[in-house]
């Protein structure tokens, strides 16, 4: 029985268990419901958990462990020369065996028989079924593949029996355990708690996993390029074309990329913060409920636009517009129609990114401003303050920690933003302060280094992980700083 059918079986047993548990509890309770510690649906839940959860765990363990056991058993019968070969060669051979084994199950019995006799053309027959082989099969492989299929089938069969037996066992055990004094409610509650904890640990474990994998790859990179050259180098010249060749010593200076990232982020924040904050203040303090009900979702639509679309917008519309208008201005001022703003520039990327960030700033700040107690507003208005005085002197100071937190969160988005800068900022890694010229960012370079056919052994590709971990550290610092600020102000204001 395959895994999915087995899962379905478990579910059916679980549902049956639930009804049996309920019925038994109802029967035990009789007319007097209060004689049971828990309501009958909790007893049903209790039997459900007992009949499904242990069996599910067994299934998971079996599925993850049994292939390894089966394959080591098969590998023991390999000829000596294969066993003594390098690990990578062994893996390759085993890959072929696995493919044959898979192919055998797809073939008709007569075709399979010709293969086993050694009369049929293995590669041709298998590729006709959509199973490509990496190399020509050796004679021992056929027996190994047959053995593999046999053992796998046995394992499957054993698994089915064991899982269903465990499930039914759990069902009978829990049905027998149902009694007026059984605290089924508390036990079901504990299972729910456990599943909640499991769900929250998924996110944390994933984060740890991501950091670990990035650290691993980055450490490869740092074994090839010294860390100080990466972190303090002012020249970015990875020498892509020469990658893989013997003397491909590129220069991997982080500084130009980091400066570009921060510069574009700064321009974006200069656009997003005033506009977003002002619109939040308008929405929270002035707008009538009807306007608010209409305008707030409209503003939030901006947040739903994919950033690649903003990228088009920057590349097709904003960039050329800025370029042309700068040419006009220059023409009027000096008579020379030479544009001084490049189509791809810090300004273009920063401006469009700023537009993208407006809804984040305004939506987050709006929530924070609305959360300021009405009593404070009334207090200020009751003293004869105008609305804007109230906003400026009471509401914004009270909301400040939250707003600063929101702004720092927005900033970390700006730092990590990719698609807009890929399309609008340019790829020239240089250090300069003119916002009308292109610069590039960490994220752009990660994209550049990872698109292409390079293998993950050269510093040209591995540098992407070093950049990634730097970016991660940067946003982490921003977030920690945001928390620090929020906490500091909270102490002062409460």
């Amino acid at each position, binding site marked *: 029985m395959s895994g999915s059918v087995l899962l379905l079986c478990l579910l059916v047993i679980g549902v049956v268990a639930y009804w049996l548990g309920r019925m038994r509890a109802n029967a035990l309770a009789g007319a007097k419901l209060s004689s049971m510690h828990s309501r009958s649906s909790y007893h049903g839940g209790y039997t459900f958990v007992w009949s499904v959860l242990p069996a599910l765990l067994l299934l998971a363990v079996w599925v993850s462990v049994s292939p390894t056991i089966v394959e080591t058993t098969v590998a023991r019968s390999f000829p000596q020369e294969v066993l003594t070969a390098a690990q990578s060669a062994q893996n390759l051979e085993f890959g072929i065996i696995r493919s044959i084994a898979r192919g055998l199950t797809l073939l008709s019995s007569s075709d399979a028989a010709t293969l086993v006799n050694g009369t049929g053309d293995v590669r041709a027959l298998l590729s006709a079924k959509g199973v490509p082989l990496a190399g020509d099969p050796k004679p021992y492989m056929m027996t190994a593949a047959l053995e593999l299929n046999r053992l796998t089938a046995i394992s499957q069969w054993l698994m089915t029996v064991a899982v269903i037996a465990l499930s039914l066992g759990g069902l009978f055990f829990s049905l027998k355990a149902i009694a007026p004094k059984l605290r089924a409610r508390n036990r079901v509650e504990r299972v729910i708690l456990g599943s909640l904890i499991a769900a929250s640990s998924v996110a944390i474990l994933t984060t740890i996993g991501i950091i670990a994998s990035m650290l691993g790859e980055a450490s490869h990179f740092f074994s090839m390029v010294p860390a100080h050259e990466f972190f303090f180098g002012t020249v970015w010249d990875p020498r892509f074309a020469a990658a893989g060749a013997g003397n491909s010593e590129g220069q991997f200076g982080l500084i130009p990329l980091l400066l570009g990232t921060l510069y574009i982020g700064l321009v974006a924040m200069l656009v997003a913060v005033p506009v977003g904050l002002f619109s939040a203040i308008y929405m929270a303090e002035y707008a009538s*409920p009807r306007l608010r009900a209409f305008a707030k979702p409209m503003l939030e639509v901006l947040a739903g636009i994919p950033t690649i679309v903003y990228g088009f917008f920057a590349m097709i519309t904003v960039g050329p517009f800025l370029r042309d208008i700068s040419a006009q201005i220059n023409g009027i001022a000096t008579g020379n129609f030479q544009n001084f703003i490049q189509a791809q520039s810090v300004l273009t990327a920063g401006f469009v990114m700023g537009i993208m960030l407006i809804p984040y700033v305004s939506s987050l700040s709006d929530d924070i401003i609305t959360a300021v107690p009405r009593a404070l507003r009334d207090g200020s208005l009751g003293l*004869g303050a105008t609305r804007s005085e109230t906003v400026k002197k009471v509401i914004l100071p009270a909301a400040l920690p939250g707003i600063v937190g929101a702004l720092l969160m927005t900033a970390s988005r700006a730092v990590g933003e990719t698609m807009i800068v890929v399309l609008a900022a340019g790829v020239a890694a240089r250090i300069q302060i003119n916002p009308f010229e292109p610069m590039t960012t960490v994220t752009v370079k990660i994209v550049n280094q990872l698109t292409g056919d390079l293998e993950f052994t050269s510093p040209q590709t591995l540098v992407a992980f070093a950049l990634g971990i730097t970016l991660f550290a940067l946003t982490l610092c921003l977030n920690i700083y945001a928390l620090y600020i929020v906490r500091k102000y909270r102490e002062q204001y409460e």
Partner: protein
Amino acid sequence: MNMLSETAVEKVLERKMTNAALKMSGKDVCVFYGEKQALYNVNLDIRENTVTALIGPSGCGKSTFLRTLNRMNDTIDNCRVTGRISLDQDDIYDPSIDVVELRARVGMVFQKPNPFPKSIYENVAYGPRIHGLARNKAEFDEIVESSLQRAGLWNEVKDRLNEPGTGLSGGQQQRLCIARAVAVSPEVILMDEPCSALDPIATARVEELIHELRANFTIVIVTHSMQQAARVSQRTAMFHMGLLVEENDTDKMFTNPDDQRTQDYIMGRFG
């Protein structure tokens, strides 16, 4: 003998209060929240340097009436006021009236103490700063000190004026809010159940304070406590279901009310 002297005192008080000038006056005041009418043709006069208590069961409209007096109802969406409310003969709902200026003349203290998240000093200096009542630090210091003194809080906080106002106890916070209102030198102070969030000791202090403030301000207070109304006020107005049931001298109100509903409410038969 005893009876006689009490009537004599009453007479003296009565004369004193009828002599008191009219400070504010409501004529046919109706208030609507959307479709729902909350006040029906209320006619009520507020006399100068008098404490007027508004009593009545929950939802009777007393807080609503209080809020019409400095147009705090304006901040509530779809709230509509009809009729005429005057302050020193001027209609405060007249379009020519600046609501900000009105609220500077008619200050307000709320049910829950609501100090700003600022220092004690800044809380008190807030109103004067907005209205430009002081020119330099020395003048501000003086306003802050005198306001806190009037609110009976000076001795407790004079050494920690820079600490946040939110760090004070509930009763102190409420007196800070009174100081804040006083600092603007309003003519009328509206108090919306100012003691409902306070313990009996803090309540006693605030009541004492109301007594003292009466010398300089006209005070309108909404209260749920009959004893409090009897203790602090000279005039009492009884509201019931959006109607002004009775308006009278406090002493008369609590001994021999004209209206049966007032009698019932005071005796605790409803509300």
